[in-house]
């Protein structure tokens, strides 16, 4: 028999007084957060020095559920906020958790520049192909032909391939998983957390309420089943070859893992030089 419990072993990482969270049944966000907390459990990061920064949107709410110093900033500005936070206090481990619209539409410029500078932070983007919180509008990752409330005839815009953008902008670690690849995602999150420099993980996740419904995946479960059948792991592949298209397999895996001096290191070297 199953055992009825009151508390979860990961509750210590959660602001339990705010659980249940606001995400819809079948939304992939909870799964991604869950994997992240499992990853935390398996690293030796001092929670006192962990800071989570989010922007606006459904994923933007992640910051509010993790029981560490957490910042729910303005739309698109999580990365520059996190940049200031990290530079002002270098002992912090800074993780930006936000959505595809927040990070790549309104915040796209900040993303590419933080990656270019190689600011030491981990960015986790939950990509659900649309603006969920505002009711399912077209976003920068909405696949071609997909229906959203602002592309009622089907999307005519070419979407961003986020991993390609990240790699081209200079990220030192780039990986993509779906919300179904929970173990690999967790391992990837651990790698990213331990990686020095700008690390990026894209997680493809279900949004049954506002995206799935209009695109023949009305439940989270169906979306997850789709991931099971249509994702293929290709580690080390050139991310430019990993575009996401309707009807095509989703290429997942770790695409980039390189070493490069970080901005933080460089700026502290510069300070030493200037103080001589």
């Amino acid at each position, binding site marked *: 028999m199953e055992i009825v419990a009151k508390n979860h072993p990961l509750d210590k990482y959660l*602001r339990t*007084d*705010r659980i249940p969270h606001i995400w819809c049944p079948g939304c992939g966000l909870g799964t991604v957060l869950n994997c992240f907390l499992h990853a935390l459990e398996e690293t030796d990061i001092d*929670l*006192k*020095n962990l*800071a989570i*920064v989010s922007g606006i949107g459904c994923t933007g709410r992640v*910051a*509010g559920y993790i*029981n*560490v*110093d*957490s*910042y*729910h*900033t*303005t739309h*698109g*500005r999580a*990365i*520059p*906020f*996190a*940049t*200031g*936070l*990290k*530079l*002002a*206090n270098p*002992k*912090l481990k800074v993780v930006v958790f936000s959505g595809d619209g927040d990070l790549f539409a309104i915040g796209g*410029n*900040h993303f590419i*520049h933080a990656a270019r500078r190689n600011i030491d932070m981990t960015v986790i983007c939950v990509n659900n192909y649309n603006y969920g919180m505002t009711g399912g509008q077209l976003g920068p990752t909405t696949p071609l032909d997909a229906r959203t409330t602002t592309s009622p005839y089907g999307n005519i815009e070419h979407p961003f391939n986020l991993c390609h953008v990240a790699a081209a902008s200079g990220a030192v670690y780039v990986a993509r998983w779906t919300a179904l690849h929970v173990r690999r995602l967790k391992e990837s999150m651990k790698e990213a957390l331990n990686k020095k420099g700008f690390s990026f993980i894209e997680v493809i996740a279900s949004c049954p309420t506002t995206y799935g419904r209009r695109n023949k995946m009305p439940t989270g479960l169906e979306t997850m089943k789709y991931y099971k059948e249509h994702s293929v792991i290709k580690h080390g592949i050139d991310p430019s070859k990993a575009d996401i298209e309707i009807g095509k397999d989703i290429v997942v895996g770790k695409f980039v893992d390189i070493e490069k001096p970080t*901005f933080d290191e460089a*700026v502290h070297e*510069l*300070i030493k*030089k*200037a*103080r001589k």
Partner: protein
Amino acid sequence: MQVKFYSGNIACAEGAIAAGCRFFAGYPITPSSEIAEHMALRLPQVGGIFIQMEDELASMAAILGASWGGAKAMTATSGPGFSLMQENIGLGAMTETPCVVVNVQRAGPSTGMPTLVGQADVMQARWGSHGDYEIIALSPSSPQECFDLTIRAFNLAEEYRVPVIVLMDESVSHMFEKVIIPPKEKIRIVNRKKPRVPPDEFLPYKADDFIPPMACAGEGYSVHVTGLTHDEKGYPQATSPEVQERLVRRLCDKIRKNERKMRDIEEYEMEDAEIAIVSFGTTARSAKAAVKFARKKGYKVGLIRLKTIWPFPDEYFESLDGIKKFLVVEVNYGQIKLEVERNVGKNRVELLPKMGGEIHTPEEIYKKIREVLQWK
């Protein structure tokens, strides 16, 4: 004590460093760029961090982040950049993040006259972001005041936990003058109030005297900070009008009800004045010259120079019963004028506006004084 020959921009940057600023994020824009340039040179020498961001949106966000990282942080910009910063100035007000924003005003709107003076961002400084909030804005008239008021801006930001705007103008930013740098120990420095209770008892937005203590990242308080309407715990309560009422009222009252403490006015020849010129920034220097000249001619004219523009000193103006006319001199089409009118009534206020590109000459102001004297 050191005596320097500084421009307003350099003096402002030096003031920031003297105040303890150790983080600067900015984006180049005329006529404020020398502040960024000087910070890039000077901050590393004192162990601080300079970063040139990709735009002003990012600059403003970065200084908020740095402030929560424990640093005293500043950005500097001009007109168009100030517009872009409004979004996160609002976040700063809502999350009560101490920081300093320098806006070297140029003539607008839009790109306007990038290299020439304007004073038309007065209302934007006050109302630029959406929603109800109160802000502090200081206006220096000389490089010395650029130094002094930047220090004061940091102190007020720390004390009241609010973004403080140093509302310079192009004239003062590029003008060089003697600046006296007092010895370190003579400079008053205010630091943000820290929590005194253990983390499990700490409510990050509970304020006994309007201003809650601030726990920064990495200090063990697991604080949640959000731009959403939040309760004393810092948790979002985005559907509770009661929480909104309490929070926003406090955000405004902490500034409004302390206006007296922030008030900073230079009165010149006001003892027996019948006409008071109201001015600020570089324009006030022309006004002072005009008052001197008018006094020589025997006219009872005085000058009220606002060094603290926001919060506006309502009570002070209300108390000036003896003044028959207020002549507001500003490089815009009447912004401070609205505030003066609000306090003393429309029929006691005259405006001498200028659309920008140059400040008023003393002659122009004197001429207007003569006009007002004839009408009164």
